[in-house]
């Protein structure tokens, strides 16, 4: 039994790793993705170009512009004589918004009257626009506060662009886990989960279909190996690959990108194994149900999409409607991402981790058992 199982596992690993091209596709594309997406996948808004229509031309307007210029989030602040003149560049997404300083703005402020600046934003890029609005609001109110004498004493978030300056007195903000609110710190642990999902799911989904197409599957089926052994032989190699890849990611993420790893290494590997098992189980289910590699590929891809979108990877789970939040509880990636966040940044208590880990193990157990059953029934 063990001899046969080991033989199958060894064969699977060799098929995956012997061919230099196969080795290449296993290692290089995920690494490239990790690299590119670590730069691309950011919700932080940088390099903002904001049009300024200064109809006031007073000292306070100049002060606000000065402050915006001083903020690292804003790259260019082109001037336009009127909103109409700024509109073409606005339409072409050259600027994300137009800041209008009405005439009389400085005069109002000097007289102690409430003053308003108008900010027109591009709703097509509502996310970037909303964040830009926040930056502008903070800068402008800070300017207003200093003018009107309220002590701005925001602290705690140096370098987080404009946000640090709280408008009113005495809110002291401490950012835990990620003091500089670096977006990459958030993204990298997530990518570790995402990329291992893809690999584990795809490898298992394709392996059986591939053998079926090549005719090698029969050759193993006529051997004394039982369907359960064959199924296990298909499930275990992705776990090994996942562990190797996870180690690689761990090293890159911590050493190259300087993201801290504050959790327990044992918990990390337990999470990786449980997660890979869950994904491989899903992959093997797909594999048992399809006939061709193409169907396997598309089936796996069709699952990959909701898995990744409903995991909290791109958007927080809390923002979803309740029924979709319910779906996320059976999504292994959702648990994996929380575990990765906890392990890398938070060093969360073992108690809270074990709960997520248990969930992941439960899901893993369910999918692998389902896969083995399904596989045995379809193979015999």
């Amino acid at each position, binding site marked *: 039994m063990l001899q046969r199982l080991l033989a199958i596992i*060894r*064969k699977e690993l060799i*098929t995956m790793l*012997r061919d230099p091209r196969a080795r290449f596709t296993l290692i290089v594309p995920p690494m490239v993705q990790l690299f590119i997406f670590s730069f691309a996948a950011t919700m932080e808004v940088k390099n903002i170009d904001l049009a300024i229509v200064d109809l006031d031309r007073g000292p306070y307007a100049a002060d606000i512009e000065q402050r915006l210029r001083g903020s690292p989030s804003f790259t260019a602040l082109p001037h336009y004589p009127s909103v109409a003149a700024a509109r073409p560049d606005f339409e072409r997404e050259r600027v994300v918004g137009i800041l209008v300083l009405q005439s009389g703005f400085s005069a109002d402020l000097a007289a102690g009257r409430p003053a308003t600046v108008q900010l027109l934003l591009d709703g097509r890029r509502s996310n970037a626009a909303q964040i830009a609005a926040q930056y502008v609001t903070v800068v402008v109110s800070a300017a207003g506060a200093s003018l009107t004498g309220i002590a701005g004493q925001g602290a705690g978030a140096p370098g987080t662009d404009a946000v640090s300056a709280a408008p009113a007195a005495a809110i002291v903000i401490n950012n835990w886990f990620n003091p500089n609110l670096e977006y990459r710190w958030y993204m990298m642990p997530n990518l570790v989960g995402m990329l291992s999902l893809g690999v584990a799911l795809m490898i298992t989904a394709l392996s059986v279909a591939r053998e079926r197409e090549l005719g090698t599957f029969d*050759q193993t*089926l*006529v051997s004394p190996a039982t369907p359960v052994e064959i199924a296990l032989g298909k499930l275990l190699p992705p776990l090994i690959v996942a562990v190797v890849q996870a180690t690689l990611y761990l090293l890159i993420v911590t050493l190259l990108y300087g993201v801290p790893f504050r959790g327990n290494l044992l918990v990390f590997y337990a999470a990786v194994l449980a997660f890979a098992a869950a994904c491989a189980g899903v992959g093997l289910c797909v594999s048992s149900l399809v006939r061709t590699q193409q169907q396997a590929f598309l089936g796996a891809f069709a699952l990959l999409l909701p898995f990744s979108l409903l995991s909290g990877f791109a958007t927080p789970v809390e923002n979803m409607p309740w029924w979709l939040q319910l779906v996320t509880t059976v999504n292994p990636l959702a648990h994996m991402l929380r575990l990765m966040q906890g392990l890398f940044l938070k060093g969360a208590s073992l108690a809270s981790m074990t709960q997520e880990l248990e969930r992941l193990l439960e899901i893993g157990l369910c999918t692998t058992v389902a896969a083995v059953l399904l596989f045995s029934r379809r193979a015999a």
Partner: protein
Amino acid sequence: MSAPGPSIAAAPPSPAARVSNLIKSFGVTRALDGISAQLPEGMILGLLGPDGAGKTTLIRLLAGLMEPTAGTVEVLGRTPSAEGGTTQAETGYMPQRFGLYEDLSVLDNLDLYANLRALDAAERQRRFAELLRFTQLAPFTARLAGDLSGGMKQKLGLACALLGRPRLLLLDEPGVGVDPLSRRELWRMVSDLVSQGVTVLWSTAYLEEAERCAHIWLLDAGRLLYAGAPRELSARVRGRVFSRRVAPGTARRTAEEELARPTVLDAVIQGSSVRLVAKPGHAEDFRHEPYQPVPPRLEDAYIELLGGAHKGESLLARGWPKPPAAGGTGGAAGAAVGESLVHAQALTRRFGDFLAADHISFDVRAGEIYGLLGPNGAGKSTTFRMLCGLLRPSAGDASVAGVNLLHAASRARARLGYMAQKFSLYGDLSVAQNLDYFANIYGLSRAARRERVPAMVEMFELAPHLQSNAALLPLGFKQRLALACATLHAPRVLFLDEPTSGVDPLMRREFWHHINALTTRGVAVVVTTHFLEEAEYCDRIGLIWRGRKIAEGTPDELKGRARSAARPEPTLEDAFIALIEDEGAGAAA
């Protein structure tokens, strides 16, 4: 036809195709190494040669699918070129796998090729009616091409290639994987075309097909060994071919003994006779009883041209462990007295409403070779798959080496070896890794692995290839490796699914040399084949048709049933066709 002889000799009609000093290289290997030949118009030309001789490459060059490395190709007086397709409009080409869109219906396929050949509506109607009648596919026009049987696919492939009324028809191994009945029909169809003036190039590994061609080209290792009429080639061995009747059950041993003689070039079993070819100058040794001179065949000459059959003791059999119980029966004339090792009882399999196998029963004893024969789609593959545990029977029972396949599948499977139709080892594993994998998956102990694996490597001469990927091996070595992997665990029963389909006679001899030797060690063999020369090696044959076993017996018994005044010496192929036609007539009546 009616032109006076002398004028033909003086100015032969322009050839349908001409190649001169043709060289085609792939990297460092030369698939074609300087070929010059002419394909005369209006005849069937048989293109033959061992696997890897360059047959497909030559056909693709003629079809304009490849460009020569050096030399020239001329088709219908022009140089074939893919772009523009000047010669392609007048050439019909059927690739090895027929080139059909299996997810489209028969009519869709015909429509596609009709349009690609730019047939107008009236012409199309006429051609469709003609070709559907010709191929007898008319009742199946709505069926998906993928659901057709091998023989029907072949006919559809031919119909598609014929749509544009080609002047030159290129057929790449049209007979592979197709039953004799369909092959015979195809031949009839193609002969019809030739009489209408079409030139046909027919590539094949079956020499009895080539024998019927007017002209053959024999390729080996990229060189043209022979071009001319097949009869002239077989004439080279005239007077050196003999047949010898043997006592029932001794054919295999006799054949081995004859082949072992240094004066013998080739010896093969033909039912209860052994046919042999003497080396040049040694014919005198056989001009006495029990030898009877017989007319030469193309295959005899072919074997001679390629250096004679594989000789010597089968190392595979020598290293074989002694069977546990039936030790005494081995070798002893293989008199079929061994224990029953394969037992099929009323095996039945339904696919929906379709009864693919209907109460099929038979036994195969130790040391016996049992052939499962039948047309494509008759149910022999279904039966075969049930016996190796790849398919669960709907009803009935099966056991292998005394172990029930249904109740103790794993234990039963440990006692059987299986060789699939197409090469189905792990192509991206090396030869050594494949051997290692199969040794382990069959549970060989460390000691057994240390003994068996190197033994296999030695006897099949795999040593130089140990580290190369199985997929990149030459076909002959693939075949050897497949046999090695199937027999590593010294199974008591060997299942061979069309083991030599598309394989040339030389390699087939080597293969059967080993299989024959294994039967002397008490191994039971079940084989399916479309190649009826191969069926002659069987001790008994079960003929499957429409899901039922319609006949069973030794090759001679079956031939005897087809003997008639018109056919005093029927071949096994004749018997096969006669038995099925009888059954069909009976069913219709």
